[in-house]
């Protein structure tokens, strides 16, 4: 396989500038529309899952509902509760919104497009630091939530913000560790290079399935989605960190949540599902680059992305929320050690395969990795299925220990003779 179109020159600096601005505007517009329609998709899918109709009054099939929601949020009064920390209160939604937005910049969404002025990469910023940038930006996102919780002068908001910071920091580690496996495969952190590696071998979900699973679970926790939506748990914390927000500021948290979902989906698709690559064909990534190829790969990327967004929604309307200690125990006691052990396993496997002379691009390489992963995933799921890791602390006590503890408590609290009630 030859890489795409080595002869066509990269564009000149001026064209690059113009192309980048155009890409920024196009992606920003498209992104906002997609985010808006994801809220509609969520409401529709949730309705269908619950045997309801969902929004269907504004426009055909409720398609203009998002416009109505937007207008409503702009027209609403913005309340400023007493004793809030005003600068932070205003900064928080902006921070949440911005970080959710700019993480998208490095994600490649199509094959390079040939133009008369040179080859244009279909990625806003083809940064060499790739997913490190995404990890850095998404961890900035926690500030939006924590500051919102802190500045609101509301105990529920504060608890939501605290939970959120603990949760996001815990799962960030597991997430970072799972991406180390991607690094082992691609030898590069640039997302463009990772997509190229997956085109050359096989999708990373086959090569490093366990890392994909850990990334998936961490992505749910990072985006504060069910089953890890502890920061905004309605039943416990009213609305969590955004309890005091109204109008467009509230809406910005809402947009940020969906933007995070889309960014997390895009990251999963790029890191583990081959990005914009069209599966079962090499037509899209060999030979002459054409506009058709760019469009087809973009459509493929959108399809993969949206399937994954659907998966997010589907999970949300299926699973109940984890309890806080279960969340923490899952993150620290299962995800992190598994990710660390998996790095060692993958590194050893790759080393062994390299040493035995099997080329990375060969069929044998990915089949060997896939077979190994199949076994590992089955072991992991059997362990997970028994629930010992996620169950509460008390259930892991032996029966005898429970009785001994009870006896000790009773003995301690027995009234001394002569004392009566």
């Amino acid at each position: 396989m030859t890489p795409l179109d080595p002869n066509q020159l990269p564009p000149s600096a001026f064209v690059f500038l113009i192309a980048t601005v155009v890409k920024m505007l196009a992606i920003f517009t498209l992104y906002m529309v997609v985010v808006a329609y994801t809220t509609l998709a969520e409401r529709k899918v949730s309705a269908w899952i619950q045997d309801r109709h969902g929004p269907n009054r504004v426009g055909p099939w409720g398609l203009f509902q998002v416009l109505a929601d937007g207008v409503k949020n702009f027209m609403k009064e913005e309340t400023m509760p007493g004793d809030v920390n005003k600068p932070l209160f205003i900064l928080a939604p902006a921070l949440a919104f911005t970080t959710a937005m700019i993480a998208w910049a490095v994600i490649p969404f199509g094959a390079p497009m040939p133009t008369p002025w040179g080859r244009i990469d279909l990625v806003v910023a083809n940064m060499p630091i790739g997913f490190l940038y995404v990890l850095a930006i998404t961890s900035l996102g926690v500030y939006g939530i924590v500051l919102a919780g802190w500045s609101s002068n509301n105990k529920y908001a504060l608890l939501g913000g605290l939970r959120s910071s603990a949760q996001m920091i815990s799962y960030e580690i597991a997430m970072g560790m799972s991406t180390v496996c991607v690094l082992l495969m691609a030898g590069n952190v640039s997302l463009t290079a990772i997509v190229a590696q997956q085109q050359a071998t096989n999708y990373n979900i086959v090569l490093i399935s366990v890392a994909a699973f850990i990334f998936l679970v961490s992505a749910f926790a990072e985006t504060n989605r069910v089953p890890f939506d502890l920061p905004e748990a309605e039943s416990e914390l009213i609305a969590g960190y955004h309890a005091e927000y109204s109008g467009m500021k509230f809406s910005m948290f809402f947009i940020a949540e969906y933007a995070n979902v889309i960014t997390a989906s895009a990251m999963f698709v790029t890191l583990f599902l081959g990005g914009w690559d069209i599966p079962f064909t090499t037509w899209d990534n060999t030979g002459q680059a054409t506009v058709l190829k760019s469009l087809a790969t973009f459509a493929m990327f959108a399809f993969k992305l949206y399937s994954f967004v659907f998966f997010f929604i589907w999970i949300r309307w299926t699973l109940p929320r984890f309890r806080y200690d279960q969340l923490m125990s899952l993150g620290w006691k299962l995800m992190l050690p598994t990710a660390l052990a998996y790095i060692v396993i993958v590194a050893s496997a790759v080393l062994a395969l390299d040493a035995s002379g099997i080329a990375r691009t060969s069929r044998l390489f990915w089949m060997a990795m896939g077979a190994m992963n199949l076994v590992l995933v089955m072991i992991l799921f059997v362990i997970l299925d028994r629930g010992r890791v996620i169950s509460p602390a008390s259930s892991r006590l032996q029966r005898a220990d429970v009785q001994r503890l009870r006896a000790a408590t009773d003995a301690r609290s027995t009234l001394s003779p002569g004392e009566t009630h």
Partner: protein
Amino acid sequence: MAITVKVMERPLGEVSYVRATLKGLALTLKHLVDPHRVTIQYPEEKWDLSPRWRGTHRMLTTEDGSAKCVACGLCPTVCPANCIKLVPGEDEAGNRYPLVFEIDEFRCIFCGYCQEVCPEEAIHMGRHYENAEFNRARFVYDLERLTAQTHPVSELWDPAHPRGE
């Protein structure tokens, strides 16, 4: 005695997380692709009302368009909520008719006694429920309004009907 916290023993041998999750996903997907929707799309579709539904009143009229009411005064007497205001009048031929007949629908408890007691089958409960108005005064229905309404009227309880018991 100290309060002992009840420690539930979880049946760890039988619990499942992965299998249960997959089962749940399958269930929600089943409903997603094959929804059993029971929602009624209200303004377009409407619920069928029972023939004995008791909604806001309607006064039936004779062939010449005047109210059937003879102002006998039974309905304001029987009305437990005291919501009917009746001022009887009499024409030259000695026929009694209502000068004022007003029902305060906010006071009404929709018991249906007025319909049951009416000897002329004049006042009826309506099979009707869309009563929104812009002010409270509009909820005092006068005779003109009661006769002008056209919605179907409620049937009385019929003990002879198979479903009447």
